[in-house]
């Protein structure tokens, strides 16, 4: 058994660059995921029956199949139809759609959590449609979804490691690259794991603090 700490320190700059790429990809995926989730939720609430069914089918497919297979479909499968995406773009689309499916369900549950009586009370107070949506539905719904959405953010940040399987740029890919050139896989993957752990703990702390601040402000 030979374990080398100095070796990890020597390659730390590359790993940290990977951590930066992972953070960037995770942030982009969160933005795309939330946008997809809002559109999906809007379609489910307002669109016609067939559109609703299509959205529901897409959600069920996404939630019940592995992310890695979805990435393979996008990255290796779509070129068969002439749609050739770069690994990074395929990764972002895959992660964004994956998070989007979960976000759609979360948003819909959040809006569903606002009781009928609340909306009727808003109407009784003479609020218009938009005002009811803005003050009676959206704010309490957002408050209700923050914990679940935060948990999904942490999961999607960790799930970015899966895009290394289509060789998109992020921490796990860089670790794979270092591993094949240096033949010290354990040290490399241990260091990468610890960086992911630090990112996950930091993200969770940040989300808890943000959610706490917003929920606190709304309560007043």
């Amino acid at each position, binding site marked *: 058994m030979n374990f080398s700490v100095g070796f990890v320190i020597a390659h730390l700059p590359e790993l940290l660059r990977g951590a930066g790429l992972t953070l960037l990809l995770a942030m982009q995926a969160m933005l795309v995921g939330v946008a997809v989730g809002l559109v999906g939720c809007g379609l489910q609430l307002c669109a016609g029956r067939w559109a609703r069914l299509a959205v529901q089918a897409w959600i069920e497919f996404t939630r019940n199949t592995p992310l890695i297979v979805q990435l393979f479909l996008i990255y290796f499968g779509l070129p*068969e139809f002439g749609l050739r995406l770069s690994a990074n773009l395929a990764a972002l689309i895959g992660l964004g759609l994956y998070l989007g499916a979960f976000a759609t369900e979360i948003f819909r549950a959040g809006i569903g959590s606002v009781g009928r009586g609340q909306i009727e009370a808003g109407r009784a107070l003479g609020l218009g449609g938009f005002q009811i949506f803005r003050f009676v539905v959206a704010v309490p719904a957002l408050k209700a979804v923050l914990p679940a959405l935060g948990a999904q953010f942490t999961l999607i940040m960790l799930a970015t*490691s899966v895009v290394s399987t289509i060789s998109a740029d992020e921490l796990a890919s860089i670790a794979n690259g270092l591993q094949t050139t240096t033949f010290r896989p354990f040290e490399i993957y241990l260091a990468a794991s610890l960086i992911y752990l630090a990112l996950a703990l930091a993200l969770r702390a940040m989300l808890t603090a943000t959610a706490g601040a917003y929920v606190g402000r709304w309560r007043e």
Partner: protein
Amino acid sequence: MIVHDLTFGSIAYLLLAARWTLLLSAIAFVGGAIGGVALALARTSPWLAARLAAGAFIQTVEGIPLLMLLFLFYFGVSLTGLRLDAWTSVTLALSLYASAFLADIWSGCIRSVPAGQWQAARSLALGYAAAMRLVILPQAVRIAVPPTVGFLVQLIKGTALASMVGFVELTRAGQVLNNMTFKPFVIYLIVALIYFAICAPLSLWSRRLEARLDRPHRA
């Protein structure tokens, strides 16, 4: 290079590979359940040190991607000089992953049993073990079933990553077949549909159970 056609034989090959996905999921679930019970009890125990240790373990495992856990076990075991096959390292990594998530779910369920139940049990002169076994756990198990089934879906999807360390299960079988036929879209779509056929009924069941649990509270 010979390019093969996609036949019914290929689909049969994928369906047969799905057995290993199911078996791997089952072993990881059993291993994870054993570790999960121990960790959940430690996390809700009256001893501070046990609570802290279990909490730190759960947070650590939940904060590391499953793919990294698989690599750590796969390469870490060979570092110690022990010779283990892909099976052993993959089942160990998946069991560890499952134990942390199940412990997180189950300790939450134990804590959600109202404190009055504890006090009532203690006032009946039940000890910690007896109160846990006779009063708390039966109520906690009821709440625990839907999220546990939900996690099982996450675990089955997680076994797909075992393909990355060369373990031949459904996803790996899809890759092998793709290398022979160069029909990635159809192959990965079939692979996805097989996963869907396994996971969707479980998701539906979990949702039904949850809805049933909710009913008495709303009444």
